[in-house]
């Protein structure tokens, strides 16, 4: 379990002071995949770097598996770090070492015997699906493969916690999906707690159970992903969940815009709109739609434009409520 209490971090540089984290309180359960999402500069990396004390917090505590990391000596902290490993956007592999030796690296630091380390590294290559790349150098691998090696390396010391800072941000959507699958698989198989830092809602949506939304050094919103996905409250959350709606609103003209959120209770968006026209006589204009069908159920959101008079809007809202979708005026 990771507990972050009243955590603040202020950077003081000669020309300015940045409050990167302001009184953060979070707790992450053992074995869960926890997301931390926010726009660039929100303080996500600073937060994750405070979790393994790469960055010393200005105030507050970080407790991982009952150990207050802030209270440890340098030597004790180094030892603890082998249980909290990290992967990065840039992979950060050692370019002059082959893949096998990269995976052996944290074991070398931990003082594990060479032969034992090699054996473990070979197992890990197997786990990440690259058993034939042992002798290859990182430069000879694709981005996705390099991240797999980085994951294997992060797993070498049998950590309890895996921190992923924008680990898929440099990868294409297909590769991203594969890496996320691998992370999910590792979480399930090895029971490792995973913290996923990202600026992409799609990443959180696909693997996280709970998420914290960060904005300007603060946690703007926190909770179950499904909850936040269907009912974003804060402005940042809305902007992350519905990235295109701001532009849509510009286009609206004098129509009333209504956002419809599908939570898997419907099977298709089209009949809903058609039915509204048939039953209520309201013709809606689809301004924006981002939906997908997962095993027959519809998820996502859609923005429709309807004539802007109070009575029509009221009837439309009532109709949508009947239909078991969430609707709100934009």
């Amino acid at each position: 379990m990771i507990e972050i209490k009243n955590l603040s971090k202020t950077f003081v540089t000669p020309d300015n002071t940045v409050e990167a984290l302001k009184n953060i309180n979070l707790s992450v359960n053992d074995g869960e995949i926890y997301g931390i999402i926010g726009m660039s500069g929100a303080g996500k990396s600073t937060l994750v770097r405070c979790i393994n004390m790469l960055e010393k917090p200005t105030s507050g505590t970080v407790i991982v598996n009952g150990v207050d990391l802030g209270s440890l000596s340098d030597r004790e902290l180094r030892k603890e770090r082998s249980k909290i490993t990290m992967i990065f956007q840039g992979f950060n592999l050692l370019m002059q070492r082959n893949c096998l030796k990269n995976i052996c690296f944290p074991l070398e630091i931990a003082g594990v015997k060479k032969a034992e380390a090699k054996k473990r590294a070979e197992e890990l290559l197997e786990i990440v699906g690259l058993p034939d790349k042992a002798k290859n150098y990182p430069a000879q691998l694709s981005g996705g493969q390099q991240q797999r090696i980085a994951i294997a390396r992060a797993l070498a010391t049998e950590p309890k916690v895996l921190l992923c800072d924008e680990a898929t941000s440099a990868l294409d959507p297909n590769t991203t999906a594969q890496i996320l699958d691998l992370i999910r698989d590792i979480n399930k198989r090895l029971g490792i707690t995973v913290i996923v830092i990202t600026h992409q809602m799609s990443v959180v949506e696909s693997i996280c159970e709970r998420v914290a939304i960060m904005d300007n050094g603060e946690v703007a919103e926190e909770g179950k992903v499904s909850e936040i996905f269907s009912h974003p409250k804060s402005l940042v959350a809305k902007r992350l969940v519905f990235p295109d709606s701001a532009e849509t609103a510009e286009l609206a003209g004098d129509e009333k815009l209504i956002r419809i959120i599908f939570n898997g209770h419907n099977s298709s968006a089209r009949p809903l709109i058609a039915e509204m026209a048939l039953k209520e006589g309201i013709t809606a204009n689809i301004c924006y739609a981002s939906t997908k069908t997962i095993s027959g159920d519809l998820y996502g959101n859609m923005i429709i434009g309807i004539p802007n008079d109070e009575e029509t809007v009221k009837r439309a809202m009532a109709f949508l409520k009947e239909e078991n979708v969430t609707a709100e005026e934009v």
Partner: protein
Amino acid sequence: MYIIADIFSSEAVSEALDILKNDIPKAAWETFYVTALASLFSLILGLPLGVLLVTGSKGGIRPLPAPIMRILDVIINILRSIPFLILMIMVFPLTRLIAGSVVGTVPSIVPLVIAAFPFVARLVESSLREVDPEIIETAQSMGASPWKIVTRVMIPECMPSLISNFTIAVTTILSYTAMSGIIGGGGLGKIAINYGYYRYKHLVMIFAVIILVLMVQIIQTAGTFAAKKIDKRTRH
């Protein structure tokens, strides 16, 4: 007046060839071992100093108090700005202390090292700074100690650059050995100066210089080749 024809007269040529046979092999060997030893000692002193300049700086993996870093910086700059010819004379007391004498081939190694190690330290510093800070941070996130970061990450990761830079240092030391001929250091420099400058035997000087040039070429080619050969950042 010395004209080209004089330099290449049959008399001058046969005399030069004689000297070439008798003196040059020994001189070349002296130049070689002085360069090798001076390079080795410069590396022994310069490498840790270069590492310290990087790890001890603000934001380094083991920051040292700023005044200490400042003093190191100034000392290195001073040593590097003294012309070698003057430095040789200035370090006479030290040379006598270490080598027992101030003239001769072996004693000439002392000023060479004093002149070269600050240069090597700077080159090491610039190579180490090429290492991606994120990779160093990754090693820290795995619990690597500063010593392990230096020996297992920083130095191996910039080895190609270290080799290229050290090659530059070796060729510079080689050219300095020629200067140490003036204060009695042996080698090709001495031959060139003694025969060419004092005794007007220009052909001998030319031979000596050609051999120096060849040595530089060989060292540079080998260094460049080695740096390329060990670099794993290419796709093949």
